[in-house]
């Protein structure tokens, strides 16, 4: 909830600011009035202005930690099952994990027709990891930031997939794989695909190249930005609903109902976005494996 000294917009901005660690350029005047000395300084950013000034040489500590932490949870859970997995009667956890694995395996089999040992584990990692990251959205928006604020950490975004760095990072990873397999599987065919499609004539090579490259680049961008956009919007609405609580006691009940309704609806969005990210990854890699 918004504190007494915060306005609604401050409250929202505060919630949308990552905990950033980075290098401030020399000569930058910090929030407390001090000037950054020669050679810059690696510090925790205080507020959005400072983190913006850090440019590319900064890292979102919260996104990174939550993302890696959730990835480790995924690995730990699935590795535990993998160690226990045998053909006997499965326990409940094993059953759940196997259900997910079976689901991913089926999706990959349906969509991807090449032979590649990487695609299925990749799809599983993406699906579960993205799902877990999205799932953080269901934790009440103020709970973790407030607790951490009491511990002295001032900014915290706990949903990694509302950080474009995270979603674009994964999308770029997928993009690199797409390029790698396109070149590996098709070789010169890939160049032909880029230059002689859709107009199969040497004169049109520049046009073709432009169109194909744009089409190719659009894939990772749409992949990453779709997830980011959906999760960011969802998070935003959670924050707005949370802000309603500060509008007075009369708003408590409708805001609570809205919160519940949106959370229930969001369960669908979370799963759907994780699924879409996975399916698109499989489809893109499948396209990279197929000659036209």
């Amino acid at each position, binding site marked *: 909830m918004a504190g007494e000294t915060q306005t609604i917009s401050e409250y929202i901005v505060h919630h949308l600011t990552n905990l*950033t660690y980075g290098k401030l350029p020399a000569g930058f005047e910090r929030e407390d009035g001090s000037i950054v000395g020669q050679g810059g300084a690696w510090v925790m950013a205080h507020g959005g202005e400072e983190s913006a000034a850090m440019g590319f040489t900064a*890292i979102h500590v919260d996104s990174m930690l939550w993302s890696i932490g959730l990835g480790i949870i995924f690995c730990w859970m*699935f590795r535990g099952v993998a160690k226990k997995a*045998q*053909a006997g009667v499965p326990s409940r956890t094993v059953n759940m994990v196997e259900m997910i*694995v079976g689901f991913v395996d089926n999706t990959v089999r349906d969509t991807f027709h090449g032979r590649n040992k*990487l695609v*299925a584990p990749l799809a*599983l990692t993406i699906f579960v990891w993205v799902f877990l990251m999205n799932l953080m959205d269901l934790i009440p928006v103020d709970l973790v930031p407030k607790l951490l604020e009491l511990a002295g950490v001032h900014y915290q975004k706990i949903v990694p997939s509302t950080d474009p760095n995270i979603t674009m990072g*994964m999308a770029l990873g997928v993009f690199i794989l797409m390029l790698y397999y396109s070149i590996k599987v098709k070789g010169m065919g890939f160049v032909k695909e880029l230059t002689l499609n859709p107009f199969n004539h040497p004169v049109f090579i520049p046009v073709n190249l432009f169109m194909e490259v744009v089409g190719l680049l659009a894939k990772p961008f749409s992949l990453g930005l779709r997830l980011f956009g959906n999760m960011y919007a969802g998070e935003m609405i959670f924050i707005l609903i949370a802000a309603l609580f500060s509008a007075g006691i009369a708003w408590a009940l409708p805001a609570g109902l809205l919160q519940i309704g949106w959370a229930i609806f969001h369960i669908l969005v979370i799963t759907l976005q994780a699924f879409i990210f996975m399916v698109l990854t499989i489809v893109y890699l499948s396209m990279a494996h197929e000659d036209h």
Partner: protein
Amino acid sequence: MNINLTLIGQMVAFVCFVAFCMKYVWPPILAAMQERENKIAEGLAAADRANHDLELAKEKAVERLREAKEEAAAIVDAANKRGNQLVEEAKQAAQVEAQRVKASAQAEIEQEANRAREQLRGQVAALSLAGAEKILGSSIDPKAHADLVDELAAQL
């Protein structure tokens, strides 16, 4: 919402997790699932086979039962037949025996009758001699008239 090193960090983390999943998570789980699938398929097949065997065994049992019943019926039939035969044979033997006994009895009766007749004949001869003696008042030399008397007796 700045693009910064987090992007690279996430890519590195992504690669690490995918690699881990590919090496340590996916193969054992899928292998276990495959194995269980096979096991279940085998189990189902075995159950089918067992069912089939059961069916066959049931059929066989019914067949055996029918055979046994037939055999039993045949044995009873044979026994009945044999019994009847025995009775028949016994009847015949009894009849033959009866005939034999009757024949021998008749023969004896005839013998007795013949003997009685011979006796009677002798006595008649003696009586007729005695009668003739009385009528003639003289003795008749039996020796002289023996032929005559015998002839007479034979005529009786």
